[in-house]
């Protein structure tokens, strides 16, 4: 029944152009011969070559990936636990505080989170570096993971878990054999979200890092402050490509898994 009016078509076209044109321009000018980022002087990949020679940048990229892998993995474990507690554990002492602490970091301004964690690390005399960034990133990303996982936990049929328990599984076995496979897609997307949040973060990392560890966003920020540079465009292009391929790939995989799961369920119904 619904039909797109001319107004809808125009707003969709302009809306998506607004979202994507800036990034396309950024990508285009990473292949520019000239050092000026606004004047086209012919196709070249030399900025990619220079990027590969830039040891400080590569070093920062390595630190960033290390931090992201560790923090997103710990955050996924803690966030899944927290989601399970929120959805399944019923009442316990301090439940309101617990759910408050899960939701508050999602809307907290980054400058406040960064400042407060830094003051904590200094207060307990922890040397700032990779470890402190990992702790900081884990703390805010576990909240995102737990929101993603708890929305999946809330919608799934509890009788499956109860059946497993009735058939003699221990709680741990029921979780491992029944619950975990069902919430697995949400856990994976939680991990991906935590990973990209960590890759992305400038403010909290700037507060919690020390001279020993510089992450990519910190490096980019200090370069970009001075102006635009084609090398940063090249780096941005690589990052945009990786994220795009990752997100589209992940959504295709999860779609296929969903189709397969539905197919199996139908087969099971037919067989019985």
């Amino acid at each position, binding site marked *: *029944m*619904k039909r*797109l*009016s001319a*107004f*809808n078509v125009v*707003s*969709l076209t302009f*809306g998506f152009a*607004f*979202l994507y044109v*800036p*990034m396309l*321009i*950024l990508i285009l000018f990473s292949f520019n011969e000239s050092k000026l980022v*606004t*004047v086209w002087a012919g196709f070249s990949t030399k900025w990619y070559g220079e990027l590969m020679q830039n040891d400080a940048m590569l070093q920062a990229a390595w630190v960033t990936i290390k931090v992201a892998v560790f923090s997103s993995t710990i955050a996924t474990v803690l*966030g899944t*636990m*927290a989601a399970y*507690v929120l959805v399944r*554990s019923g009442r316990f002492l*301090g439940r309101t505080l*617990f759910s408050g*602490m*899960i*939701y*508050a970091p999602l*809307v907290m*301004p*980054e*400058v*406040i989170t960064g*400042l*407060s*964690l830094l*003051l*904590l690390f*200094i*207060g307990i005399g922890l040397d700032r570096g990779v470890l402190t960034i990992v*702790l*900081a990133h*884990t703390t805010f990303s576990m909240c995102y993971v737990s929101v993603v996982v708890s929305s999946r936990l809330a919608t799934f049929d509890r009788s499956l878990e109860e059946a497993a328990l009735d058939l003699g599984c221990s*709680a*741990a076995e029921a979780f491992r054999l029944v619950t975990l496979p069902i919430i697995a897609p949400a856990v994976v997307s939680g991990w991906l979200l935590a990973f990209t949040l960590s890759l*992305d973060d400038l*403010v909290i990392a700037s507060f919690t890092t020390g001279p020993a560890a510089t992450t990519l966003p910190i490096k*980019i*920020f200090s370069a*970009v*402050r001075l102006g*635009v540079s084609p090398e940063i*465009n090249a780096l*941005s292009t690589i*990052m*945009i490509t990786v*994220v*795009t391929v*990752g*997100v589209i790939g992940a959504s295709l995989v999860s779609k296929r898994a969903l189709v397969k799961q539905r197919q199996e369920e139908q087969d099971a119904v037919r067989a019985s």
Partner: protein
Amino acid sequence: MGRHRLAVLDRHRRHLVGELMRRFLLIAIPYIWLLALFLVPFVIVLKISLSDAAIARPPYFPQFDWAEGIRAFIAELDFENFIWLVEDDLYWKAYLSSLRIALTSTVLTLIVGYPIAYGMARAPEEWRPTLMMLVILPFWTSFLIRVYAWKGILSNEGFLNQFLLWSGLVSEPLQILNTTTAVYIGIVYTYLPFMILPIYAALDRMDDSLIEAAEDLGCSRFSAFWLVTVPLSKGGIIAGCFLVFIPAMGEFVIPSLLGGSDTLMIGKVLWEEFFSNRDWPVASAVAVVLLLILVVPIVLFQRNQQKEQESEQ
């Protein structure tokens, strides 16, 4: 017989203890993590905001000293930094200007985002997953890079000015980069997905026959939209506005990359107070006041979310 029974009981008891222990650990581990790395840091910020700046390491006074006891420690704390925030007009001007920038850009984001969400909700069923993906994708891409992209577009020799000069709309380049206008553009651009998604979700849930009924009863298309569609998407609009307003209020990256020296935002002030002036107590006081300002919208937002969830069920 008795012994056998005891063994069974013992196994039951151990089983029960194991379950309780597991439940305890399941709750305790994330709980303690959040207490230690989320709540305790806030208490520290609060404490330091009541301390005085000092030339020392760390640069504030008093330090907590077990020997002198807690009473002597508390006696040293005062509200001097907060009084300073009121007296020096830099700070309240920065709060007001952040508030104004955040509010204006929230309204602008709504104006840009609503038609997009509306178009998505009316698009053919088979397009919608792709359109959704196109809205979500920028959210996964680095925030910093998306802000940086505008630096090249808005500068005096940038794309926008080249286009405007070429089309003859202006005769000399407009100064957009390093002004508050650039900050508005940056906020609208980076937060647009947060506005589109909740509005789209609300519009998508809506029953189309309501519009048809309104039109059958003599509403024009526009009044049907205004009287039926907009009220029904109110929850999404409110959620989207909070999702833009709250983080925009404490924004640091956008004003420091796109804004100029006259763009005053509190996130930037806090950053400079901390990193350039190394005045930790004042930076902490700035953070405490910012948090107090944001408590109201955060609570309202959570209440709105709860209401939305209840109405869905």
